[in-house]
């Protein structure tokens, strides 16, 4: 008896300890508080976490049990933390009002507990009011089990987080109020009378009138690339002058984990004279893509591997409204520190076009009108060679497409089930741009002189035109291929339309025409495979973020190769689609990650729920609720 007892005790102890060994518990304590911080030589009251601004880096290994004690020490504000990009139970997702999470009241605590089921670069931030802008954001990195690299090309000697953010003198609350007083409150680079005059001289009165009348009727500004200006852009909480520096030794490989933790800003990121290889997007591994630069939307992340050879490099992330740079350095630690940063010359800011308003294809008149215009530009103004390509480069190119898009629209109607108008568009653009690239190369010899000459006078058109230098490769969504084949390659059973709209004048932003206050949740059955179709009817780009699950971006790759994304940039006037396997039960926020768009209403709820057999509308869909079963039937 006693032997049996001790045996069983032993077995018990072994079992318990083995489970300890397998699932390490990783604990963090985060104290949210308000303190004076001094970023821009003026002390300002901001939110700190454990006394730090921005919040500290959290590190996990895949398989860990994360236990995070969050203490809200704010005096009179609820708070919350959302783990951006993480797969976890709904309650732990940290969005007040979702999954019975009620936020964290002042002077109280919440314990987040979840199993870490993935690896990669993520981040965390508040989901209460504007606290994210005020400092409640930080990086969250999950290493693969045992910190083993996922693939040979991911092997790196150094591993740095490069977190981009935008810091403002005004509090988030004040910014939101100002935007509501006047949506143009922060628009300090609007077009003036002289811009109109220049356009008249360049394009003639008639074209100018036609172009402008459209914008005027829509009551929109061509210059609205970002709603808020006056930001100081930071890397890991440091200003360009403070110059965050990552050290390396000669011949080392460096992994840089770029996180765009900004409230409102997109960036074009480059490290002049250093090629980067993108190995991960939104924390999910992708097949390596060598690039010179990439555009990172708010809340996206990209991991790149670089092999610095020189002693010093400057990391430059320029906001797409060209109002400033976030700057940091990579430096050879064996070389003496000599370099102060040098402020790069801003690239020309792009003006929005009809295409960005989604009018390129909807009305042939306007398309034609613009087409003419664009042709003019092509000969006189364009740098001729931007292999940056596709969507972006060359609006005249897109105008050429407009007629084709028309035809396609017709075709699409006939084959409703296969509608992938977007992907098709994409691939077309790609194809086009490839040929463009060759042209570009041919031209590059003589165009390389031009940009320097008319850099400031030159007008750049189209949201996606990053003014990538000739011969440089900018990352496109279509370049992204999942490193590992997607487990679920089923076609979508149905399509959910997510229309993005806005009224700049009143600063109201909507999903499917509704603010979050009036929204009806999007209902999805557990296990269902759906297509999310983001249609941008507004003239701003929206980084659309889905909580709790990864979407497979339909970027022209085969379904096994589509990359996982938690945040998709939907450029102005464009449609972007993604597939989603609804394999996480709960209520998940789906929203624009521009902070003030979200707090003006651009948010919705996607509910993934079990539906019992009686309610299932069609037999085919009820089958598919359980993937395994349906396979068995086949």
């Amino acid at each position, binding site marked *: 008896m006693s032997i049996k007892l001790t045996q069983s005790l032993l077995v018990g102890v072994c079992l318990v300890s083995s489970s300890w060994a397998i699932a390490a518990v990783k604990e963090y304590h985060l104290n949210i508080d308000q303190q004076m911080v001094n970023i821009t030589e003026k002390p300002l009251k901001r939110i700190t976490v454990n006394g730090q601004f921005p919040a500290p880096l959290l590190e996990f290994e895949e398989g860990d049990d994360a236990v995070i004690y969050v203490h809200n020490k704010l*005096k*009179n*504000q609820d708070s919350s933390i959302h783990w951006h990009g993480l797969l976890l*139970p*709904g*309650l*732990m997702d940290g969005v*007040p*009002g979702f*999954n*019975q999470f*009620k*936020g*964290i*009241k*002042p*002077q*109280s*605590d*919440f*314990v987040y*507990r*979840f*199993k870490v089921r993935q690896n990669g670069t993520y981040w965390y931030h508040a989901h*209460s*009011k504007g606290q994210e802008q005020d400092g409640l954001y930080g990086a969250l990195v999950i290493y693969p089990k045992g910190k083993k690299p996922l693939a040979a090309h991911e092997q790196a000697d150094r591993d740095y987080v490069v977190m981009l953010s935008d810091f403002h003198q005004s*509090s988030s*609350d*004040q910014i939101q109020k*100002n935007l*509501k*007083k006047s949506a143009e*409150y922060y628009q*300090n680079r*609007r077009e*003036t*009378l002289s811009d109109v005059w220049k356009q008249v001289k360049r394009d003639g009165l008639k074209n100018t009138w036609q172009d402008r009348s459209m914008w*005027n*009727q829509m*009551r929109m500004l061509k210059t609205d690339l970002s709603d808020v200006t006056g930001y100081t852009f930071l890397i890991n909480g440091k200003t360009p002058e403070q110059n965050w520096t990552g050290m390396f030794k000669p011949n080392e490989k460096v992994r840089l984990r770029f996180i765009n933790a900004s409230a409102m800003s997109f960036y074009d990121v480059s490290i002049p004279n250093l090629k980067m290889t993108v190995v991960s997007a939104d924390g999910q591994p992708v097949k390596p893509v060598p690039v010179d630069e990439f555009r990172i939307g708010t809340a996206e992340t990209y991991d790149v591997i670089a092999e610095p050879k020189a002693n010093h490099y400057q990391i430059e992330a320029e906001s797409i409204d060209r109002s400033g740079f976030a700057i940091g350095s990579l430096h050879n630690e064996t070389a003496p520190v000599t370099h102060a940063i040098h402020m790069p010359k801003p690239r020309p800011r792009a003006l929005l076009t009809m295409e960005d308003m989604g009018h390129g294809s909807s009305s042939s008149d306007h398309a034609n009108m613009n087409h003419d215009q664009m042709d003019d530009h092509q000969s006189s103004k364009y740098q001729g060679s931007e292999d940056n390509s596709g969507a972006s480069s060359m609006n005249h190119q897109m105008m050429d497409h407009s007629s084709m898009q028309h035809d396609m629209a017709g075709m699409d109607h006939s084959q409703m089930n296969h509608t992938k108008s977007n992907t098709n568009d994409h691939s077309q653009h790609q194809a086009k741009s490839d040929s463009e690239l060759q042209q570009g190369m041919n031209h590059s010899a003589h165009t390389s002189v031009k940009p320097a000459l008319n850099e400031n006078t030159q007008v750049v058109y189209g949201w996606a035109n990053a003014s990538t230098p000739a011969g440089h490769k900018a990352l496109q969504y279509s370049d992204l291929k999942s490193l590992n084949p997607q487990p679920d390659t089923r076609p979508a059973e149905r399509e959910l339309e997510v229309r993005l709209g806005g*009224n700049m*004048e*009143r600063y*109201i932003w909507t999903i499917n025409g509704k*603010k*979050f*206050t*009036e929204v009806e949740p999007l209902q999805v059955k557990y296990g269902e495979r759906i297509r999310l179709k983001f249609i941008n009817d507004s003239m701003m780009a929206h980084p659309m973020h889905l909580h709790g699950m990864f979407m497979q971006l339909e970027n022209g790759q085969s379904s096994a190769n589509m990359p996982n994304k938690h945040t998709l940039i939907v450029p102005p006037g464009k449609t972007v689609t993604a597939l989603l396997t609804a394999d996480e*039960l*709960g*209520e998940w926020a789906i*929203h624009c990650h521009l902070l003030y768009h979200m*707090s*003006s*209403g*651009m*948010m919705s709820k996607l*509910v993934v*729920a*079990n539906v019992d057999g009686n309610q299932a509308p069609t037999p085919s869909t009820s089958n598919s609720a359980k993937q395994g079963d349906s396979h068995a039937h086949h």
Partner: protein
Amino acid sequence: MRIINFFAMSTLSASLLLLSGQSFAQDQQHSMPMPQQSEQSIEVYDDHLQHQTESAVATTAVKEKPMQPLQQGQSSSDDADHAAHIKEHGGQIYQQSTVESEWLRNDDGEGVLKSKLETRIGTDENKIFIKVRVDDAESEQAEYDAKVLYSRNVADFWDVQAGLRYRNDQNREVDQDQVDAVIGVHGLAPYFFETNTYLYVGQDNQTSLSLETERDVLLTQKLIVKPYLDLNVVLSDDSNYAQKTGLSTAQLGLETRYEINKKVMPFVDVAYGYNKGNKETAWQQQSSSENEWLYGAGIRFKF
């Protein structure tokens, strides 16, 4: 008369002060601008308890894999929480106020100090507009009116408004104060024309239409020219101080402002004005139409 005047003026100025005070206060205490927040903070203790239990539940949930945490109807407390939360995403109350003062002179050197206050408070859909206008001519007593309007958003760029207008003119011997009903439209017309148009109906068969429209033209980011047009059409008027029917007044002007910042903006103003004149009544003589150039300078505050 004097007493009434004094009373009216003091209430007006008091309300002005209150209004401005309110909005200043709102500006200062960023953290607690909205009333619904106080409700939340009362619930602190209850919720604390709830959290405790919740997190305990959560731990077990994690271990066993979440099967179906929620799909039944939500309890009323959840609804309340949800309601509190969704207000953070488009249900907020904002205010916007403008105060301006302008000294205007005509060709003959007669001056008038025109002051305006406009405050909007409310959500995107429902707002209250308060508009006060005071005209203080050099040789006369100040004449003023105040409008209180409920404003309902009906289309992307348009609100329908309805309310009351109170008018006071101490220069008159009778009918010194009157109340009119107002209905109108406020919004942004295509080509960025900020437009207000109202229909007024008052005693003695007074009905009139007003139209104000303006548009900004940027010379630079801060130096902004604003052409504007104000029209007043009298449809009928049998009052003691009746105006001629038809296009009663019109003012076409060009204001040039310099936005020192988005809160303070001085301006100069040149306008051409038309006035059709008054009808002959027991209290006034007929006056004929007149045109005049107006030159003005003023300052505007927005907060």
